[in-house]
């Protein structure tokens, strides 16, 4: 349980969860059915309900944050967990039932091909996921600025369905954007650090429970914050890739 070497060839599923009482059990059941040999860690982001207990009762390991850090902080904790225990790969998976476990193979495959991070995109062709017009417009603006900064086109910059290799996990375990809309920032950070970030089309479901954090004034605030933050992402050099593999 505590040794780390044995995890090198294992995949860790990281599920950040904040008050996901309704959907967490079914999400965990789905994962255990579809990918039975993956390890699952739920990062309870200071929930006020019984999310953490539910996670443990349903056979997941649960890291309990003492207070709410936001999605970015919860994820960083998950990455830290992955690095501490020596996992070779990790997947980020939402607790709200939006992600489809049968799509996991699709986002893992490019890692074998040398990718460091793979984003499951709702808009790259497969599936029938719909967003409202204003949300779509806002996402478009963000997509454009990310294109400029990352030097690469992505169709779904806010997707929380992603896979990571060990090298990226190790950077993200200390340097993950800790606030809301973390995924866009993470994307740019990884690209600018020279990691190979790819996107694959996936199908997703409409969220089954919980509520999307998209109240407009908050969204505007976070937009501005993200834009400032993106514009100031350092162009850093990634650690020289040792002769692994």
């Amino acid at each position, binding site marked *: 349980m505590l040794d780390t070497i044995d995890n090198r060839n294992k995949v860790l599923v990281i599920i950040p969860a904040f008050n996901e009482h309704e959907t967490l059990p079914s999400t965990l059941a789905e994962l255990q059915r579809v990918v039975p040999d993956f390890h699952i860690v739920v990062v309870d982001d200071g929930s006020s309900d019984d999310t953490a207990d539910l996670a443990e009762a349903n056979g997941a390991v649960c890291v309990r944050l003492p207070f709410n*850090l936001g999605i970015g902080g919860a994820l960083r904790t998950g990455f830290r967990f992955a690095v501490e225990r020596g996992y070779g790969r990790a997947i980020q998976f939402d607790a709200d039932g939006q992600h489809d476990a049968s799509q996991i193979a699709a986002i893992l495959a490019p890692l074998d091909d040398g990718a460091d991070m793979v984003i499951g995109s709702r808009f790259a062709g497969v599936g029938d996921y719909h967003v409202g017009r204003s949300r779509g417009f806002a996402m478009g603006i963000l997509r454009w600025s990310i294109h400029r900064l990352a030097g690469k086109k992505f169709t779904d910059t806010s997707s929380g369905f992603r896979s990571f290799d060990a090298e990226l996990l190790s950077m993200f375990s200390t340097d993950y954007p800790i606030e809301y809309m973390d995924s866009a920032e993470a994307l740019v950070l990884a690209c600018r650090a020279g990691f190979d970030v790819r996107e694959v089309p996936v199908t997703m479901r409409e969220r089954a429970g919980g509520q999307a954090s998209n109240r407009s004034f908050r969204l505007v605030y976070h937009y501005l914050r993200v834009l400032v933050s993106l514009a100031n992402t350092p162009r850093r050099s990634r650690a020289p890739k040792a002769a692994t593999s």
Partner: protein
Amino acid sequence: MSLRAHISLAVLVALSIIAIVALVRRRHLKAKYSLLWLSLGAVMVVIAAVPGLLDWTADRLGIWYQPTLLILLGLALLLLIAVHFSYELTRSENRTRELAEQLALLRLRVTELQRSIDTPEPVKTSDESPSASAGVDETS
């Protein structure tokens, strides 16, 4: 400024400095933060103590209504202090987050260890053979 203004300014500044020093002595204020406030006080002391100074400097700077210089100076220093606080706050928040994350992971570790002590049977032998070196075999 009139003499009366100078005297009231001097009294005000003296009281403020005494208050700051008292806070530092009671450890309610860290010395490093008090430095900022004390330097603000020092500037005010000089202005209060040397009657002609403010007017003279204002004239040199081409400020038509001299007392505005006082306000300008105070404002500039306050802004500096506010920026410094934002900086400290950011640092402090980063540390708090770091602590929360480490705490959560350690808490899990402790629970796991406790559980392994509490279980009567020895630590479960891993499913794979003892030294499954994960397939990566480095032969010389």
